[in-house]
């Protein structure tokens, strides 16, 4: 590990290794939106994919009783028993309703409404799930919460952490195969952030999640002021995970601020808006970062779609597949992209699916976006290894 920022690392679980920086694949109730397991397997790093399931999507359905009855853990129940997975207590999909949290419990919002979850409830639920990792129960406030409320959130979260750790101790072997991550709180207050970081660091946790840094909760300048200050007070030899930071430019800044792991809400968000991610392949090739990017592409001199090609070459960009210009474009969305969608289908077809509200449109976009996101992280790690960080950064300015 390189120190407190721009770190290269590796997470090991069983026989699998995930090199960091990396991201976990977001799923809801065990479903990666749009994607059936056979399609997930077309992604490059399929065997070492870590699934991220937020608590809210599984608390009610399947729920504790059903999982206990099933007896084989959540991974098997959701059809991914060969993958590792992480359960977060927080979920950035809905409005964060922190006002409902109490000293002894956090409110989790499910389809039918609100459920109060204590640390013990949560620990029991985790026992039935048997994930590889889980976040401790946490009370997260946005940056504009009052000082008093922010302090309370730090106190409560530390209390929840201690209760979760206590449960692990008492229960002997039942949670032995799982690892717990602390949640660093503190809203927009430097002092509270430092306090939360330092106190959490004293506990025997596997890693640290940085909470309250989504763009809904904090403005972007504050995020990147507070983040490095916070991570500097966390031990170097433990991983740091952040939710709800996903655009390439922000990921790069977050890595500079000492973060190792992210979630995959961003590719999903793009897909829901009919957008396809485009990594600047030509520019990346010229940095000599990855062998696969040095392939010579066919038809380099083909002058059709000139504007599209140029866009793709030098800067990170997004394509909106709803746009009319794709109606008769019988080339793949991104030339040179080896994802299932780009090797099998054309922009025109995907455009047709989107205009006609066909489910397959979302499927093909999602595969592409996840694939590109994986390649993006490959580039990140390669650029850190080969001292090309600054050059990579220049390609992904916000």
């Amino acid at each position, binding site marked *: 590990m390189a120190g407190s920022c721009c770190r290269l690392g590796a997470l090991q679980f069983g026989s699998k290794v995930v090199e960091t920086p990396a991201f976990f694949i977001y799923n809801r109730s065990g479903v990666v939106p749009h994607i059936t397991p056979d399609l997930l397997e077309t992604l490059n790093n399929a065997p070492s994919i870590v699934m991220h399931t937020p608590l809210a999507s599984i608390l009610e359905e399947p729920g504790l009783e059903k999982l206990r009855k099933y007896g084989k853990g959540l991974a098997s129940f959701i059809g991914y028993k060969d993958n590792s997975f992480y359960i977060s207590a927080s979920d950035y999909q809905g409005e964060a309703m922190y006002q409902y949290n109490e000293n002894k419990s956090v409110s989790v919002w499910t389809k039918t409404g609100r459920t109060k979850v204590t640390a013990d409830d949560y620990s029991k639920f985790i026992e039935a799930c048997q994930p590889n990792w889980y976040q401790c129960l946490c009370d997260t406030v946005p940056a504009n919460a009052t000082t008093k409320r922010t302090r309370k959130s730090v106190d409560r979260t530390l209390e929840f952490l201690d209760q979760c750790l206590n449960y692990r101790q008492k229960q002997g072997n039942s949670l032995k195969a799982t690892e717990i991550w602390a949640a660093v709180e503190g809203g927009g207050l430097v002092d509270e952030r430092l306090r939360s970081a330092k106190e959490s660091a004293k506990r025997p946790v596997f890693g640290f999640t940085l909470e309250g840094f989504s763009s809904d909760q904090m403005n972007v300048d504050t995020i990147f002021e507070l983040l490095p200050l916070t991570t500097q007070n966390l031990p170097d030899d433990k991983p740091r995970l952040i939710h709800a930071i996903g655009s390439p430019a922000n990921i790069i800044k977050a890595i500079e601020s000492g973060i190792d792991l992210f979630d995959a809400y961003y590719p999903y968000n793009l897909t829901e808006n009919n957008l396809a991610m485009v990594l600047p392949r030509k520019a990346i090739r010229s940095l000599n970062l990855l062998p696969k990017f040095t392939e010579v592409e066919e038809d380099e001199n083909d002058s059709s779609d000139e504007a599209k090609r140029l866009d793709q070459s030098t800067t990170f960009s997004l394509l909106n597949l709803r746009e009319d210009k794709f109606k008769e474009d019988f080339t793949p969305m991104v030339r040179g992209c080896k994802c299932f969608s780009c090797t099998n*289908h054309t922009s025109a077809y995907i455009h047709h699916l989107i205009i*006609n509200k066909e489910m*397959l449109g979302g499927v093909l976009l999602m595969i592409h976006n996840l694939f590109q996101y994986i390649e993006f992280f490959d580039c990140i790690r390669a650029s850190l290894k080969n001292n090309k960080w600054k050059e990579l950064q220049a390609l992904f300015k916000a």
Partner: protein
Amino acid sequence: MTTSVSSSSCSSAISRALNFKIAAECTTSKARACLIGLPKCTVESPVFMPVGTKGTMKGLTSKQIEDIGFQIILGNTYHLGTNPGPELMEKANGLHDFMNWKRSILTDSGGYQMVSLLELSEVTEKGVQFASPYSDDGILLLTPEKSIEIQNALGADIIMQLDDVVSSTLVGPRVEEAMHRTIRWLDRCISAHKNSHRQNLFCIVQGGLDMDLRRKCIEEIVKRDTPGIAIGGLSGGEEKQVFWKVVDLCTSLLPKDKPRYLMGVGYALDLVVCSALGVDMYDCVYPTRTARFGTALVPWGQLRLKQSQFSADFNPIDKNCPCLTCKRYTRAYLNSIIKQETVACHLLSIHNLTYQIQLMRSIRKSILENKFPQFVKDFMKEMFPDANYPQWAIDAFASVKIEL
């Protein structure tokens, strides 16, 4: 009304665009297992064609459909003819390339969709005229020529004539009128067809539930010597006892050396009965549509997975099913995601289509091994464990010497 037989361009082209072989015939019933050699792919029959309406099988990729094992799928001319339209399809090199499906495709004429989806304005000798929000004068006219033009652009291995479709429960002179018009429209379709060397134009037998009309229609229609023949105007809510008798009459009268396609039929029992009566090809939206409503098809009926009885059922849908859904997931899990995630629809579609193809393969295999009657008995026992067999099925099987 007499109509002239169209030029013989059809018959000389038959040997090039469709190659038909009977691989085996059941020595008891009228069932047969055939090989239908088409431009893109040889299709083994009896065959069920899943419906990929707008150039997609509702959320499944072409590769997933291919992996399940389908050799031929159906595309809808009405939908694809309006969106994205024939000009774009020509630029795309046809529907195969557009959706990246390398095997065979059959397109329908567009007539049925228009009847079921749009407000019917008028059927004239010219064609079917509909009120449409999409055209400048508020009118959409589908003529035999227009239908063939679109289907030529789509480039399917098999294309269908535009027929005058009437509800199967309709009686009276309209039925006869529709039957005669269908034949006249067939001739216009044949004249308009530009690609008989690589696209097979099938005719459609009409005549409602009237045996005489059906007979007359077949007599005329076989003179046109099309590469294959469809039986239309059924599966629309008519009584089952009449349904099978009409199918039986048609298969008895139609030439043996051409494929017979029964349109719109897809329930398991109907597939087995009609195969016993000598039908080779089928299509239906049922398996994929019912998947989207949370229903899984199984050899002993159906599972409505939304029901609470499945919420803690940790068995797969069917422990004998090789599909990915049954290999990975339990009924309980599917029950939990069914109303919220589109992936649940995909998983159920994969299962239901696998069920359909397994059924057709079993039918075919039993015919090849000359064990079809036993297959029928086993199938019925599994589908109706209390032996409460529907009378119409008993009668239909008995008519081809299969006693349950």
